[in-house]
């Protein structure tokens, strides 16, 4: 029976998680297989990542363990805005993002609080933003032009941060965005000082896909590339491509993407909805290693969506009924011609049930 999470207005249960260091975690389980990541700060960078990208991959791997939705607190957001919590969801862009929406009633949205873990944030960014202390934390504040937007970044290391952005839904918010966000982040400080980890109990359902290293998945396709290598592009994404310098090519044909394989962990609605019955040019469904996958051609290549766990579903309030979200692998390839082979290689490596 599927676990379908529903209406739960912020039960603060007061669980305690022990932490020993900035990047530490209470979770001491070992990797179950080659693709699973330790979450105790000893993340192993995949051998396919070359030296110049290993520091970034190491940082991304550590940040993948942080529970983005766990860094929100709907109760604190309600206090900061004066409005009611509406919806909190991991992102369709990647599981490193989580969005909390607030409102004053149905169809009366007020604020959206976007949060991202491990976003690029270097010395140049820090130099532009205003240094402040909120709740005892050193953070950097960036104001929007109209009082409707504000961004606060808390560095995780010298190149990455947790970033939360407040965006007002109407032109004349009751409070300036930065006032709302300062109050919110101040209230979040005790949580942010010990970043909650996936599986630590702060959010439910647990997103089990994050235990898997996306580079372990992408590595399964390295033999398809001459001098293939891996590169991460965030905590939940890794790309396999060739290191061989190719001669300049003509503009690729419409619908053909880069000659590479990119994998990203996302939360999305049923990919079968991409299929239009009777149209052979649209998406098609396959089953690989017992998992449902949908191949969907697009303007810039092919996206394949693999449902990772169809038993854990998250209800999204602001959508049509029966449009639950599941954890999915999004696999992007140059065309759909190779997508099935790529998907089989990846799932054979990391997706066996």
């Amino acid at each position: 029976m599927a676990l379908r999470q529903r209406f739960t207005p912020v039960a603060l249960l007061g669980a305690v998680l022990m932490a020993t260091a900035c990047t530490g975690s209470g979770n001491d389980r070992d990797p179950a297989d080659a693709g699973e990541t330790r979450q105790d700060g000893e993340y192993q960078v995949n051998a396919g990542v070359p030296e110049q990208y290993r520091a970034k991959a190491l940082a991304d791997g550590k940040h993948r363990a942080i529970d983005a939705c766990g860094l929100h607190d709907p109760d604190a957001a309600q206090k900061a805005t004066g409005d009611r919590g509406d919806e909190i969801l991991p992102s369709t862009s990647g599981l490193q993002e989580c969005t909390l929406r607030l409102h004053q009633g149905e169809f009366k949205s007020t604020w959206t609080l976007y949060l991202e873990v491990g976003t690029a944030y270097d010395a140049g960014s820090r130099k532009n933003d205003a240094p402040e202390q909120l709740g005892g934390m050193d953070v950097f504040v960036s104001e929007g032009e109209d009082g409707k937007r504000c961004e606060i970044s808390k560095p995780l290391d010298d190149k990455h941060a947790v970033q939360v952005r407040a965006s007002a839904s109407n032109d004349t918010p009751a409070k300036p965005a930065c006032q709302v966000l300062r109050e919110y982040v101040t209230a979040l400080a005790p949580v942010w000082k010990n970043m909650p980890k996936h599986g630590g109990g702060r959010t439910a359902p647990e997103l089990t896909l994050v235990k898997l290293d996306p580079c372990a998945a992408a590595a399964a396709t390295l033999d398809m590339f001459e001098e293939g290598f891996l590169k991460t592009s965030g905590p939940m994404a890794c790309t396999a491509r060739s290191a061989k310098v190719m001669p300049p090519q003509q503009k690729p044909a419409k619908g053909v993407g880069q000659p590479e394989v990119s994998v990203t962990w996302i939360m999305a609605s049923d990919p079968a909805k991409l299929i239009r019955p009777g149209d052979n040019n649209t998406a098609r469904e396959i089953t690989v290693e017992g998992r449902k996958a949908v191949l969907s051609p697009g303007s810039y290549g092919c996206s394949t969506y693999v449902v990772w766990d169809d038993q854990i579903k998250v209800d999204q309030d602001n959508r049509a009924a029966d449009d639950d979200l599941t954890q999915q692998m999004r696999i992007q390839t140059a065309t759909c011609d190779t997508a099935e082979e790529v998907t089989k290689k990846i799932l054979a490596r990391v997706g066996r049930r």
Partner: protein
Amino acid sequence: MSRLTVAFAATTLAGLLAGCTTILPGTPKPEPGPSGEDAPAAGGSCARSTSPEQCVEWRNTQPKTGEQLIAQAKQDALITAQMLCSAVPAQVWDRYLGAGHYRLIDEGRACTISSDDTAKTPDGKLAAITEIQIYLSPTESIARDLQILRSRKDTAGMVTELSLAGKPAMRVGREDDADGKGPEKEELSVAVLGDVTQSGTLRIRQSMRPPRGQPAEAPVDRSTLDAMRDAVIGEFLTVLFP
């Protein structure tokens, strides 16, 4: 009916963070520069650079002058940048940039002198930031620049010839460099030997940008920049190319 769709079990933790206060580049509380002293800031200033890995700390270096400085620039761009950074004493920069200014060498060849980007106005808000970048090109001439810039439609209207401290100079600017919205800029090149056809060009960019945390295009009062522009050029030329 609305609903929150992910349940939360709070983990309220406090005070378990020993050793979590590493100072990062661009740190919220950098050491201010040594006003009134010609010495680098304690702990260095490169932490305040946009590219700390390409930054070299400023060290007070007796500058050469005239042709000797141009010859030095042909041999060693870094030492030349240190000399440019050392040319004008701290008391003078205190006057133009305020207390707490700092100096550093970007990318091994350009000297940057900046106002304190953590300085506050009397009402407690962060102040706008004024910055001077200076670089000596030993091989380029203004005549060459003028020829290239005036030959192109998109740049011909951006060039102005002028005289600064008695030397021929060239200003290159776009409309939005002086529109009262950040960043405001004055990009000047000076023919240091007094002849636009001779190699040896001092490139000086003076800029102002909104306080940290403000939108990049927030309003900037450029009267400070207008008031200091020629005077700053004069300070450098008096020492380096008397």
